[in-house]
């Protein structure tokens, strides 16, 4: 995932993999893994703060969606051209036009309020981050479990498929694909089809990473006694898969998902930055940053708040994910 974003895939991929290895092995009597994890998580102040921040952001994003699209209370596209220098096209006043009315400043040329736009853009960024993660986790888990459980040629086929996916320069593909799909596809309204395509493309290209992890986990779980026991009692494959294996995969899936969400938010931002994001006048943080990149020499303030929005969100998810991983696997601390 991070691969296309030029971060190390290691940071998000191998690390949980390594960390998750021992997960579930160590059971302390009397309390379930979930209870222990929750106890540990509660003690991790940073993780809890991040969790609260995420919750606040999610609520804010929903509120933004309602205010913007359902009730139309806020108008992220309102112009304030009177605050823009007509010759230079940049906001008058210092710090990119920051004022009481416009605490985050204004966008060049049209003078739209950045605070409102960042707020209104939050739901799209988060929605894409969450939904794309859901897509890749669902595909990745199904493929990983099937490959790990059935092994043999099924495993070979799926593993090779993952190899093929991993061998693609993903970002290029995503760009090309998003560009190809017509706007009016799926009969969704304003922004709808583009959001849908972004979710699909990001999610679809990310599944092999989680697929590999789940496959490895399944392979090792499969050898454990309880699976043998279940099978020796005559349980059929679906039963073993869903009743025995899946519950034991919840922890790694949960941790990986938490760490995948920020990666996908970054992926969306990258696609938007490269110009295949949401259609104007709607904006995500990535498209705003993309526009800011045209202005950074004369209005460097434009990039600050969209950049911070991405940074803080991604950081919060990463911190929470780290905390969750530590909570679920004490050995990783």
């Amino acid at each position, binding site marked *: 995932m991070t691969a296309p974003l030029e971060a190390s895939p290691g940071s998000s991929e191998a690390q949980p993999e390594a960390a998750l290895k021992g997960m579930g092995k160590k059971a*302390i009597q009397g309390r379930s893994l979930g209870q222990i994890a929750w106890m*540990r998580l509660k*003690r991790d102040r940073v993780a809890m703060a991040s969790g609260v921040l995420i919750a606040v952001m999610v609520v804010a994003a929903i509120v933004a969606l309602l205010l913007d699209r359902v009730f139309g209370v806020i108008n992220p596209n309102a112009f304030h051209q009177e605050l823009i220098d007509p010759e230079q096209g940049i906001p008058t006043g210092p710090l990119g036009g920051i004022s009481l009315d416009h605490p985050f400043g204004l966008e060049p040329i049209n003078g739209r309020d950045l605070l409102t736009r960042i707020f209104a853009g939050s739901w799209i960024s988060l929605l894409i981050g969450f939904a794309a993660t859901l897509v890749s986790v669902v595909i990745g888990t199904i493929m990983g479990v099937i490959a790990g459980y059935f092994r043999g040629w099924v495993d070979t086929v799926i593993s090779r498929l993952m190899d093929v996916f991993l061998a693609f320069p993903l970002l290029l593909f995503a760009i090309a694909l998003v560009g190809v799909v017509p706007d009016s596809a799926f009969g969704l309204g304003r922004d709808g089809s583009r959001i849908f395509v972004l979710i699909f493309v990001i999610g679809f290209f990310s599944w092999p990473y989680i697929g590999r992890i789940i496959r490895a986990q399944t392979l090792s779980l499969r050898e454990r006694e309880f699976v043998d026991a279940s099978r020796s009692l005559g349980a059929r494959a679906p039963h073993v898969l869903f009743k025995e294996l899946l519950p034991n995969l919840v922890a790694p899936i949960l941790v990986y998902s938490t760490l995948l969400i920020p990666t996908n938010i970054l992926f969306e931002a990258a696609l938007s930055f490269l110009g295949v994001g949401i259609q104007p006048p709607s904006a995500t943080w990535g498209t705003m940053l993309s526009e800011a990149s045209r202005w950074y020499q004369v209005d460097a303030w434009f990039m600050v708040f969209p950049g911070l929005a991405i940074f803080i969100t991604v950081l919060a998810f990463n911190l929470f994910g780290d905390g969750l991983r530590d909570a679920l696997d*004490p050995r990783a601390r």
Partner: protein
Amino acid sequence: MKHSQEDLLAGGAARPSDRPNEAFLQVRDLKVHFPTDDGIVKSVDGLTFSLQRGKTLGIVGESGSGKSVTSLSIMGLHKRGTANISGEIVLDGQNLVTATPEQVRSLRGKRMAMIFQDPLTAMHPYYTVGNQIIEAYRVHHNVSKSVARKHAVEMLDRVGIPQPDKRVDDYPHQFSGGMRQRAMIAMALSCDPELLIADEPTTALDVTVQAQILDLIVDLQKDFNSAVIIITHDLGVVAELADDIMVMYAGRSVEYGSSREIFAAPQHPYTWGLLGSMPRLDRERSERLLPIKGTPPSLINVPEGCPFNPRCAFAGLNGDLSTTERPEFREVSPGHHIACHLSGEQRQHLWTTEIKPKL
């Protein structure tokens, strides 16, 4: 308690009252506590024993009884900051608990060495066996690589590895389990240590190899006149080997005595349990092994009174004493100490009527 500890300290392995100052290793009131999120884990909680050169001490107990933690404490292998160690570990007059890490390090490998239980994980997979022995030798001896290599080949030969000059360049994974353990021993003995700690040296091995390895340790001990501690959960292993045996439970010693005494007249119900769960070839086969019921206690919340009381069949014989008061570690016969509330008669009675016949 105090009294008996003094006694014990004064004693050597074989004869506790004899030549008090010559004990090579003295451990006094050793406590090793690990602070964790869930509370303090008292892995070792007041342990006292001593050992002379040329003697062998067997430490026996279930997993989690504090055997390995004790040995690692002696070796100074607990990471500072993670473990709170108090008490004294005196090796040849030097207190290792208060010594600097550097002083302890210089002793490790040279004066005291350790054989670990799982040689596959205990040896570095990326370096050849020879390389690892050479390294151990060269830390303490300022010799050239070729000299050290010759020494390594000699050591491998000595622990009975065929074609040592060839196998010296093999990697651990290319050795069989028994051979690996021999290599491990060769590594531990490469600097002629005066104290050798063998932590479950034969656990992963099959019975014939087990015997060979144990014989090897005995032979080498004779050659080097080392003091040896053998840690095991299996009384059978130490039966022939050890001069003295210490039985540990929940971070404490519950019975200490000469090997002969422990096997002939064990006094502690826990020791009875251990004996009961041990298959023996030298007796008639009884119907079945008698496992100790229950599980080892949490080391965070050690049961009040006698730590063994929840699992002890005889805990009720002295009213609620077992659940309220910690039993004193006392000498019940010369060189034989136990921590149990049962009276001598009760123990005698139970042993002869209930326990012994079933073994």
